[in-house]
């Protein structure tokens, strides 16, 4: 394996991680501030991708499609917060899981009603298709590079929002003591709707970004949701910093595991067996990582007990 290939794979891992971060950031915010387990987060990711595909097909503009996905996911997020989620804060996690699982089914079937059973088309815009040449002659997909940049900009934006603004202060306060902030006269229900819509918008953005290089189809959100949960468990539930670090760890582990394990194993067994065993092991790797982190830090890397 050459150094160039290794660097390219590290970039791929980074890109995968950044995409997971967009999903995990919303999930961890919602859990941290409201104490809610939201399984329907993957559905908002799907909504983002479908709205982006529809708007891109209608207008031909990718940027407009991205903007529409953000707005639509935030709107749907606010809508389900006001109608369903709001009733769940006081209940235990099992009720929340049950209700948000129902939301997954409702969103999936509703999407099928509106868009049909067949996957939709969404492509990268012309100005981001093809590859760019990075230093050391590395040829890398322009679109994936753009995803990395967008993800890091969003991470920075979230960091500033949470540490430097009044809303961010309230979010942090809500995270550490829900009753106290309500007693101080902050309208907690507006704050909750806002945080939920923000998380939903990030999921929608991530769905739209990824939809351009993957398949836009019903049920696309659930596999990502599982990974996002792994990320927030590793990073520590409620911590944005943890979500970023966890996401990049998971992205790198998964990508490098997939490529390096078969190569490493082929030194001790024949190629075909190494491929089979290597790819089987690689798919377990992130869960092993999670178990390892929890062994030493039971609350995750940045979690508070």
């Amino acid at each position, binding site marked *: 394996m050459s150094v160039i290939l290794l660097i*390219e794979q590290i970039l791929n891992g980074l890109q995968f991680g950044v995409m997971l971060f967009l999903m995990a950031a919303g999930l961890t915010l919602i859990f941290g501030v409201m104490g809610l387990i939201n399984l329907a987060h993957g559905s908002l990711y799907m909504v983002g991708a479908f709205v982006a595909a529809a708007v891109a097909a209608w207008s031909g503009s990718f940027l407009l499609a991205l903007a529409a996905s953000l707005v639509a996911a935030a709107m749907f997020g606010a809508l389900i917060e006001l109608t369903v989620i709001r009733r769940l804060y006081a209940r235990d996690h099992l009720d929340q899981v049950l209700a948000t699982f129902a939301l997954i089914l409702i969103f999936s079937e509703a999407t099928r009603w509106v868009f*049909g059973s067949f996957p939709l088309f969404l492509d*990268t815009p012309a100005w981001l298709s093809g590859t760019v040449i990075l230093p050391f002659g590395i040829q890398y*997909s322009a679109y994936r590079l753009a995803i990395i940049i967008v993800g890091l900009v969003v991470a920075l934006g979230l960091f500033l929002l949470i540490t430097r603004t009044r809303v961010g202060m309230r979010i942090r306060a809500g995270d550490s003591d829900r009753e106290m902030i309500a007693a101080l006269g902050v309208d907690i229900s507006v704050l909750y709707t806002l945080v939920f819509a923000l998380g939903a918008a990030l999921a929608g953005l991530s769905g739209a970004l990824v939809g351009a290089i993957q398949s836009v189809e019903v*049920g696309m959100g659930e*596999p990502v949701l599982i990974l996002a949960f792994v990320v927030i468990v590793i990073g520590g539930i409620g911590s944005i910093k943890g979500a970023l670090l966890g996401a990049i760890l998971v992205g790198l582990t998964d990508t490098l595991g997939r490529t390096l394990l078969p190569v490493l194993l082929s030194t001790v067994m024949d*190629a075909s067996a190494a*491929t089979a065993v290597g790819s*089987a092991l690689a798919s377990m790797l992130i869960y092993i990582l999670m178990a390892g982190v929890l062994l030493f830090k039971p609350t995750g890397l940045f979690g508070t007990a």
Partner: protein
Amino acid sequence: MKNGMARKAFRALCAGTALALALSAPAMADVKVGLITTLTGGGAGIGADIRDGFMLAIDQAGDVGVEVVIEDDQRKPDIAVQLSDKLIQSEKVDILTGIIWSNLALAVIPSATAQGKFYLSPNAGPTQLAGRRCHPNYFNVAWQNDNLHEAAGAHATASGFKNAFILAPNYPAGQDALKGFKRMYEGELAGELYTKLGQTDYAAEIAQIRASGADGIYFFLPGGMGISFLKQFAGSGIDLPIVGPAFSFDQGILQAVGEAALGVQNTSQWSKDIDNAANAAFVESFQAAYGRLPSLYASQSFDTANLILSAVAKADVNDQDAFRAALKAAEFASVRGDFKFGNNQHPIQDIYVREVIQEGDVFTNKIIGTAMTDHQDVYAADCALN
């Protein structure tokens, strides 16, 4: 008083409704078919094609006493088994059909045939049921799972691949796929990869392909996996010829892939431009009925329904031996042209090479050659039927 009248009126209404229901109940069907397929969740597009192709043939036949009960398996083996038990025990169906996925087929078919029902597969053709465990009541109207991959291997050899990179998901059908490809491919392998089932990001694999020095790619990634791979491959700047089985380049998927699939060569036993009267009529009537082009899957279930109809016209389903012989004779106008069953009741058929082209705004396939003629699966030799 008023209340009493209302009650009377209500009773009358009930009686009337019951009567109307009794009148409108269909005449007892001669043959009842249970169609179990995936209509919700991932893969629902394929299920819709299976259902629509099947019902198109049944509707075209008119009133010949065939009743179809349709159920949704949600792509889950346990649900498929429950549905097949329900269809056999309470609906009393004579024939089962419709399942798309091999793992579901393996869960349902052996128990259905053991209960004395016929099973006609419009898609899945798992290895296990083609060889030693073949059954006189099980017919496969599509292909044995390896067939299209073997044809892809033969075509890769014929088109001069010397150093191919091959990949498939790590599950039984994926392993069968690579095995089938390698059975007919004569060149070297630049790399062989198993990906995770349901994987959507192929950046790592594409980087390996770039570094491998391969001169061509073969992949089997059904459904959304194939869409993701092709879009990402197109953005990678690698320019290598691709061959694959038809599943990743079929009508339902091509529109979602767009230009990234143009020029890809894929192997299929059916294409919308196979030149025969049955196929022309099928493509036209399917488009008229549903407003979209038929897929490979729709062609398979259309053939399955016509096979059933041809047997119903010849024999009583309760006389199992006569009905089985009528099925095995396969005297129906297949949209593939010639169609016959081998001893293990899987098709012996030609497999074509198609190329993805664009017609107006629609992406579709056209035939550019024949990969294999009268091809039969290798497992037939292990089957005791004759």
